């Protein structure tokens, strides 16, 4: 079926419609809300497959459909959809993994009273994420970016009655917001510099030659090229959204949300949005810096931050005891790998790892969800153990996911994607530090995942809930099996011996020969890590929940620091948090005493004027008038005394007057 880019809007629109239906569904309308969400996602998957087939036809084309949203004065504000291999592959992945997670949620949240609200928010998230993927306009991308952050906030804080969940949701939103500020500044600057927000626009788009040429030649603060500066600002958004150092602190806390949320948002899709963004604007990030005064590549910064994050996440994960926290830090580490791949110049390797990571990390999270569901929401691995027997299917799929993540060779896709990243790092001319960090992280990844599996599934049950666990229902285990199948299947599309995916995503790149030495080295490192983990945790399983961790016996201060996540939260609280508190107190004081004082002073002035007015009015004016009236009345009373009421008295006056008149006439002469 031939699909033109014009119909790409269907992919995000269908889940959005389901979200709208879910918003108006009453609490009891579970079937309607869930049915709408799952149907919409399934239909979106079909449309995504059609788009994928259309992209297969011509992988080099960037099919766009642009339209004007509204006019700002004389300049039109244009939005659009973009269909290219990257879009197609991402849409298929998001819809497929999302569909499986939706089906898993049917079983996981079966007992929750807010079932319909959950599916409404899930559909909203899916719509926003898919909108982000198909967008050809940076504005539309940013809108969907923020919507995805909102959906994350709503879903992390789904059980908002728990203070920890509400705080975690707030923390996630605020931390990503800090990154989003950088992204917004980058977008605005890009619009100012090039006059367009569209990626591809028949030659005028920001990723096309004309715009890039103008951006390379202009320089800005510190001698950086404008393209580098904009690239760094856009990377800020990716740092926030994808949990890179230093904004990684929200991801572990985000595990307060339900496990399907952790699987969908914080493993497979939303955190991958940062990686996707950098891959999308890769031509801008990779633009030649030869003309700038300071030839700093934005990608260099990306690579180093990615390497640091990969190492940081892996190191902290080895000391965590909550099943979801281990997986969260693992996600941080793997996202660091993806940024590393982008930084060393191979966005294809990054996207390949993103795809494989989506599958095996979603698998691991859903497996963890199955374990949590079976153990009645016990998440501490020190209290679990021996679940291999009762939870056979979960164990099998979790093991497949673990092997993919650790990088067990050949059959599991994680090995091939990690290999391509390490290969690209090895070929980087600037520094070998990212490669070193990547290799160390390989060991640590294998180690902590083996530790997790050993503590959870092997040994004997260390608590009553672990002993009473039983396998999850079919609704929850079927997605696990499908994801496990996908994890293995994906390994066949990206190997160096048949790089179908790499060729599809970027047909212009030349094929890299495989590096056998690096492959052998990474296999050895994986064996080293897994072996150590097995020896420490599976050979002599933990006897009691309170028994000391074998690592803690070796280097207690380091392990306690790692278990406390290297005190990043405390550091941020002590610096930015305290500063904000202090500034807020200062602003409060300013407001209360100075501004409020000024207003109260003005009020007092008005009051005083009013009282003066009143005094003048009452005493001077009224008093004056009253006194005058009193005088008038007194005068009247005096005159009224002449009115005796006696007729004869009045007559007397008349007579006397007459006499006087006569006298006057007589004496004065008759006139």
């Amino acid at each position, binding site marked *: 079926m031939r699909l033109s880019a014009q119909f790409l809007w269907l992919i995000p629109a269908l889940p959005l419609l389901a979200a709208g239906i879910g918003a108006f569904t009453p609490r009891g309308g579970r079937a309607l809300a869930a049915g709408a969400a799952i149907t919409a996602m399934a239909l979106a998957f079909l449309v995504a497959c059609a788009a994928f087939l259309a992209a297969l036809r011509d992988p080099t084309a960037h099919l766009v459909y642009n339209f004007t949203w509204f006019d700002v004065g004389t300049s039109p504000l244009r939005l659009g959809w973009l269909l290219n291999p990257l879009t197609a592959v991402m849409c298929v992945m998001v819809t497929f993994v999302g569909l499986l997670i939706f089906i898993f949620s049917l079983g996981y949240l079966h007992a929750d009273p807010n079932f319909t609200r959950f599916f409404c928010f899930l559909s909203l998230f899916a719509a926003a994420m898919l909108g982000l993927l198909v967008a050809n306009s940076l504005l539309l991308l940013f809108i969907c970016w923020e919507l995805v952050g909102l959906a994350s906030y709503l879903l992390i804080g789904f059980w908002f009655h728990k203070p920890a969940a509400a705080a975690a949701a707030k923390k996630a939103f605020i931390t990503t917001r800090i990154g989003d500020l950088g992204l917004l500044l980058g977008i605005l600057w890009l619009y100012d510099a090039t006059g367009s927000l569209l990626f591809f626009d028949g030659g005028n788009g920001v990723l096309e030659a004309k715009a890039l040429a103008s951006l390379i030649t202009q320089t800005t603060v510190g001698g950086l090229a404008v393209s580098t500066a904009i690239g760094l600002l856009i990377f800020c958004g990716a740092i926030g959204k994808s949990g890179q150092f230093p904004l990684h602190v929200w991801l572990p806390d985000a595990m307060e949300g339900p496990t399907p949320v952790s699987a969908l948002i914080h493993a497979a899709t939303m955190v991958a949005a940062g990686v996707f963004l950098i891959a999308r604007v890769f031509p801008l990030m990779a633009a030649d810096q030869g003309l700038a005064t300071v030839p700093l590549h934005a990608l260099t910064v990306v690579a180093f931050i990615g390497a640091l994050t990969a190492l940081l996440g892996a190191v902290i994960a080895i000391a965590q005891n909550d099943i979801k926290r281990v997986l969260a830090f693992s996600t941080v580490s793997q996202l660091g790998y993806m940024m590393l791949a982008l930084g060393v110049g191979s966005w294809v390797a990054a996207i390949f790892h993103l795809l494989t990571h989506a599958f095996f990390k979603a698998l691991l999270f859903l497996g963890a969800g199955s374990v949590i569901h079976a153990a009645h929401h016990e998440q501490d691995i020190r209290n679990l153990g021996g679940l291999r027997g009762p939870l056979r299917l979960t164990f099998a799929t979790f093991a497949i996911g673990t092997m993919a993540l650790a990088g067990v060779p050949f059959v599991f896709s994680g090995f091939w994607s990690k290999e391509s990243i390490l290969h690209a790092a090895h070929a980087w001319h600037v520094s070998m530090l990212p490669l070193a960090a990547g290799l160390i992280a390989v060991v640590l990844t294998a180690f902590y995942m083996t530790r997790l599996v050993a503590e959870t599934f092997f040994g004997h049950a260390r608590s009553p809930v672990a002993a009473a666990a039983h396998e999850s229902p079919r609704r929850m285990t079927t997605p696990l099996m499908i994801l496990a199948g996908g994890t293995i299947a994906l390994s066949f599309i990206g190997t160096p011996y048949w790089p179908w995916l790499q060729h599809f995503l970027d047909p212009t790149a030349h094929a890299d020969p495989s590096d056998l030495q690096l492959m052998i080295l990474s296999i050895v490192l994986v064996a080293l890590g897994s072996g150590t983990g097995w020896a420490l945790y599976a050979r002599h399983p933990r006897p009691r929940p309170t028994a000391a961790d074998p690592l803690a016996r070796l280097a207690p201060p380091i392990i306690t620091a790692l278990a406390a996540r290297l005190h990043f939260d405390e550091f941020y609280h002590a610096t930015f948090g305290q500063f904000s508190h202090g500034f807020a107190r200062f602003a409060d004081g300013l407001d209360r005493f100075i501004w409020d004082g000024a207003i109260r002073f003005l009020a007092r002035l008005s009051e005083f004027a009013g009282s003066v007015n009143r005094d003048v009015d009452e005493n001077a004016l009224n008093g004056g008038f009253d006194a005058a009236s009193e005088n008038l009345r007194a005068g009247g009373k005096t005159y*009224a005394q002449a*009115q*005796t*009421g*006696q*007729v*004869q008295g009045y*007559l*007397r006056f008349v*007579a006397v007057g007459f006499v006087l008149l006569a006298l006057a006439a007589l004496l004065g002469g008759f006139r």
Partner: protein
Amino acid sequence: MNLSPLHFCLLFSSGLFCIGLIGALSRRNAILVLLGIELMLNAANLNFIAFWRFSPNPENGHGILFVVFSIAVAAAEAAVGLALVISIYRHQKNIRLPEATRLKG
């Protein structure tokens, strides 16, 4: 001084007028006040007659006509005055004028 008959008549009518005035001003009884008023009117009538009688041409009846009209008016006014007295009596059950002070201000 030469007192002609006209002077006598005029003096007489003035005296009558004064008596009438004093009576009207100082009697307590309302009817006696009316009496005084009648006296004053009649004094004026006398004045008219005196001037008519001792005028250059007494044959035209102007003076008598004046008096006839005056007597008629006096009669009407006496009627009205008596009606007022009856009203006062109805209010106060006597006709002592000093007691009629309801218009006192």
